[in-house]
């Protein structure tokens, strides 16, 4: 193969929408499996002495929702279920109003909403975009349910807007600015890049559609490959830690330590 061919536009375009996609997905899945196994090898069962109320050993269960107590069989998110108000019949249940006020959603509601929307759409939206499903259908004959194009277009705008809010926080809010490094801007750009390029390509803002769509594919691939090994690792870390490591803020019956 001649060198001029390797550096030709057609070759690059074919490469990033062909083998590169496979490479990105393989690195992503293998990396995630590696990190999950690594986490699991670090975690060990923590022998927790279960607290049991008894004579001379009173436990006020209303404030002990986080403590290792034998509550029978409980599922995820059911570590002390909620009740409507303070007049509770079951002392094991939490008052959801107090819980909400003290939670991060009560303390910082704006960021909770923005960050939730951003992360849900970041992961969920690409799966339901019509263009992606057509590609899947062409390649494998299978596809997911697709959102109408105007809806996915609007939601892409929402993701970009959320990313801009993050950027402005980093630039202008003292408490974020003080802990921000260059890597934070880089990874924020990398997270937003597939959406920005996809949006520009869909609206054909620039005449060179092929270049934009190539950048769209490339940025998506780079992001996928970066997930298991960079700051994006918080995606895996969050699930592994909060569902497995015992603690006040863990989900469900997490009982391990590391």
């Amino acid at each position: 193969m001649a060198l001029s061919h390797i550096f030709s536009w057609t070759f690059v375009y074919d490469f990033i929408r062909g083998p590169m996609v496979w490479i990105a997905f393989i690195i992503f899945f293998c990396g995630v499996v590696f990190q999950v196994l690594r986490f699991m090898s670090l975690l060990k069962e923590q022998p927790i002495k279960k607290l049991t109320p008894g004579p001379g050993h009173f436990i006020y269960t209303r404030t002990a929702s986080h403590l290792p107590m034998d509550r029978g069989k409980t599922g995820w998110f059911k570590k002390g279920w909620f009740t409507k108000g303070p007049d509770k019949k079951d002392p094991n249940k939490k008052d959801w109003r107090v819980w909400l006020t003290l939670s991060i959603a009560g303390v910082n509601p704006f960021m909770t909403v923005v960050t939730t929307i951003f992360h849900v759409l970041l992961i969920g939206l690409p799966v339901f975009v019509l263009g992606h499903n057509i590609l899947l259908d062409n390649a494998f004959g299978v596809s997911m349910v697709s959102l109408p194009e105007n809806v996915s277009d609007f939601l892409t705008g929402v993701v970009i807007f959320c990313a801009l809010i993050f950027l402005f926080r980093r630039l202008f809010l003292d408490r974020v600015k003080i802990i921000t490094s260059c890597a934070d801007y880089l990874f924020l750009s990398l997270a937003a890049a597939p959406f920005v390029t996809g949006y520009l390509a869909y609206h054909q803002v620039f005449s060179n559609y092929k270049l934009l769509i190539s950048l769209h594919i490339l940025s998506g691939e780079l992001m996928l490959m970066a997930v298991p090994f960079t700051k994006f690792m918080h995606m895996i870390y969050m699930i592994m830690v909060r569902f497995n490591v015992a603690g006040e803020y863990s989900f469900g019956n997490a009982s391990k330590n590391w």
Partner: protein
Amino acid sequence: MFRKKNTAGVNSNEIRAILNEKKTKMKLSLKACAHCSLCAESCFLFMGHNKDPKYMPSYKFLHSVGVLYKKKGNVDKQDLGEMRDLVWERCVLCTRCYCPIGIDIPDMLALARRVCRSQGVYPQYDRE
């Protein structure tokens, strides 16, 4: 910013040995920190000091344990002195700090304290 290090009185090997004990957990935690600052309000000292960002839990561990791992334990007395202010004066290890991702912030600050203590850098209230 670029000052000459004076490592006299600091045993870097001892620091490295302490850091290596929890290397995997700490490095993963430092990497996972998204620098979101949502842990700020969970610190009562942050709230009590007019929301001074230097009291944020993330600021405290990034500038103590973060620096120790970044410099691989090659720190001098001045670095440790700065860390002393962070981990003793600006943190009481009440363990109330909250990270949405699940980072064990008190464990990180406790490690920084341990490193400082191993080098004789800690508050001596009877002398100060």
